[in-house]
């Protein structure tokens, strides 16, 4: 009927094994990602990272998890008990559920049964992921509210505003994928990427999705809901022990989910990368695709870690500006472009692929160049210290450079030293 006949035919024990596998993959991925993140960030900061428990410190997150679970479980006096307990569960369960529609591979021989390496699929699989993710937001919002603490409430409010805003641009970035694939089911979208990955065909959509997936998962540089400098820990300030562990688990599974979704929708899912399938026919058969899938997914997770290791946190208004005034109009305009090109291709009977690729590349290059030109940072001209005293080198023209205006408070108040550094008067002199 619509290419989904291969799903829903499995015997019950195959389904049970698949459910168990999805669960185990999620949990193991979380443990691995925590270790990997700590290791990579440590390398970026010239440290070694965890190296005590197990080979390369791989069992560190397991040890941390056990320790976390054995900690005292505190419930604040002012908390709303029922909601306080429900919230971490509400955050965690949807995170697992979304993984059920992710295709890990093609149809394989699975314990003697021919079945696709995917728990299930439906005509609206990607919409289903969005729907379940929106239930996951409830966990965070309610956790923040039920704690009965101002920090938590602010964190919860920020989080819901952030996730709703970025869900909009995320959804709009996906619309072009639906347009090109002609389907909302994940397995069909992977099938539609046999020749062209949508990441190349729809480059602007891919970039918008990548930015909004960082916002959607509350990760740095968009981790404002748990901005520790402002909100202590945000929505999970009052949580401890297993309840906190559930929030932590949910965050890492969500990271894996959006990465898996990005892989599926834009990087050809389980298909072998870089045209390997044309050279070696076996690359897209059997269990090999699982390897390609996880390689691509770990690439995204590595980008997540890289961003966290290098970028400072955005201010909230800048963050909202980016979401509503940059990403949203950009996705809308790009949808119109894709729709027009696709319609013209259907009417004219030609292939839209190269046109779309060229157009998307041009738009992206222009936007990136625009960003680069706005950077005020230029090579600083440094004056060498003149005297024998070891003073630090100063940029030419004074300590202030770049776009900052010179500070002037009237002639008597400021005296300019010879090397251009302004010396402010002491309070007594000013009086």
């Amino acid at each position, binding site marked *: 009927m619509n290419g989904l006949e291969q799903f829903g035919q499995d015997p019950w024990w195959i389904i049970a094994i698949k459910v168990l596998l999805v669960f185990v993959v999620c949990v193991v991925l979380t443990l691995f990602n925590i270790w990997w993140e700590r290791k990579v960030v440590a390398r970026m900061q010239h440290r070694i990272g965890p190296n005590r428990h197990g080979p390369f410190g791989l069992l560190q997150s397991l040890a941390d998890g056990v320790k976390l679970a054995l900690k005292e479980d505190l419930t604040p006096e002012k908390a*709303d008990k029922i909601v306080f307990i429900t919230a971490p569960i509400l955050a965690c369960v949807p995170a697992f559920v979304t993984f059920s529609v992710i295709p890990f591979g093609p149809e394989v021989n699975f314990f003697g049964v021919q079945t696709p390496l995917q728990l299930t699929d439906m005509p609206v699989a990607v*919409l289903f992921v969005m729907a379940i993710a929106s*239930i996951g937001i409830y966990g965070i919002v309610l956790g923040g509210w039920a704690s009965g603490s101002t920090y938590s409430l602010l964190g919860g409010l920020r989080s819901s505003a952030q996730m709703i805003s970025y869900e909009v641009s995320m959804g709009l970035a996906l619309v072009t994928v639906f347009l090109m694939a002609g389907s909302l089911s994940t397995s069909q979208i992977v099938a539609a990427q046999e020749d062209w990955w949508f990441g190349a065909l729809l480059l602007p959509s891919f970039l918008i999705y990548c930015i909004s997936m960082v916002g959607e998962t509350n990760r740095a540089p968009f981790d404002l809901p748990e901005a520790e400098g402002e909100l202590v820990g945000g929505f999970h300030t009052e949580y401890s022990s297993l309840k906190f562990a559930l929030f932590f688990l949910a965050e890492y599974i969500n990271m894996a989910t959006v990465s898996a979704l990005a892989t599926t929708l834009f990087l050809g899912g389980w298909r072998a990368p870089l045209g390997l399938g044309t050279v070696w026919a076996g690359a897209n058969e059997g269990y090999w695709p699982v390897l390609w899938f996880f390689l691509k997914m770990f690439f995204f997770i590595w980008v997540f870690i890289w961003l966290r290791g290098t970028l400072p946190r955005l201010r909230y208004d800048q963050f909202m500006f980016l979401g509503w005034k940059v990403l949203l109009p950009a996705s809308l305009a790009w949808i119109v472009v894709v729709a027009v090109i696709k319609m013209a291709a259907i009417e004219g009977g030609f292939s839209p692929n190269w046109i779309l690729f060229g157009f998307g590349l041009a738009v992206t290059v222009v936007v990136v160049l625009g960003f680069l030109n706005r950077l005020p940072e230029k090579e600083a001209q440094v004056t060498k210290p003149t005297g024998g005293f070891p003073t630090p080198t100063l940029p030419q023209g004074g300590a202030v450079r770049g776009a900052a205006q010179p500070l002037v*408070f009237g002639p008597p108040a400021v005296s300019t030293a010879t090397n251009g550094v302004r010396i402010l008067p002491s309070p007594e002199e000013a009086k």
Partner: protein
Amino acid sequence: MSFVILASVTVIAAMGLLFARKPVHAALSLAVVMVGLAMIYATLEAPFLFAVQIVVYTGAILMLFLFVIMLVGVDTSDTLKETIAGQKVLAVVLGVALGATLIAGVGQASIATMRGLASANEGGNVQRLADLLFSRYVIAFEATSALLITAAIGAMVLAHRERIDPKQSQTDLAQKRVADYAKSGKHLGPLPPPGTFARHNSNDTPALLPDGSQSTKSVPAILAGGNSNGSADEGQGE
């Protein structure tokens, strides 16, 4: 079977919506009702409606409800005071009337097996819906979206305020702070933190200055209470 489970969960949640004392609990019950309805759509082979019901109602509309309710605070309960005169009586009368109409209507309908589902979903549920929405019902669809956009713009116009004085940028604020320092000697940086790490772990322990005296600015005015170290008037309120 699945209908029995879903229906009972939905009905229980609906009862919770009616009887919950806290508005947040009521909103949560409503969320369960919405998800229950979505599940029922899924079992009735309307997968698109299932996803849209959750995305739109649970994810967007109810979240906005929660947003407003949450700002009221944790321990606010509904007041039992009637704000509209005769509201209870009117509610009972209208409720009974609605119930009677529904029972009369449903009681007269005969419920047989579903017909036409296969032809309605031919070629895929999503595809058929898209066909209908963008051909036969396109006027109604566009009119609805125009109405929604008008409402959104109306809300923005009502909430919009013109800025009278220019907005102060970070540069302006920094210059103002330095100018204040030049004029009155007011400290440029943040206030000193409390001396919590020395011997006590309480926020109201004042920090010690290099000469051993207590820093009056290190304790928030609201904690100092203006009693011992006199920081109430020059604490963090500035």
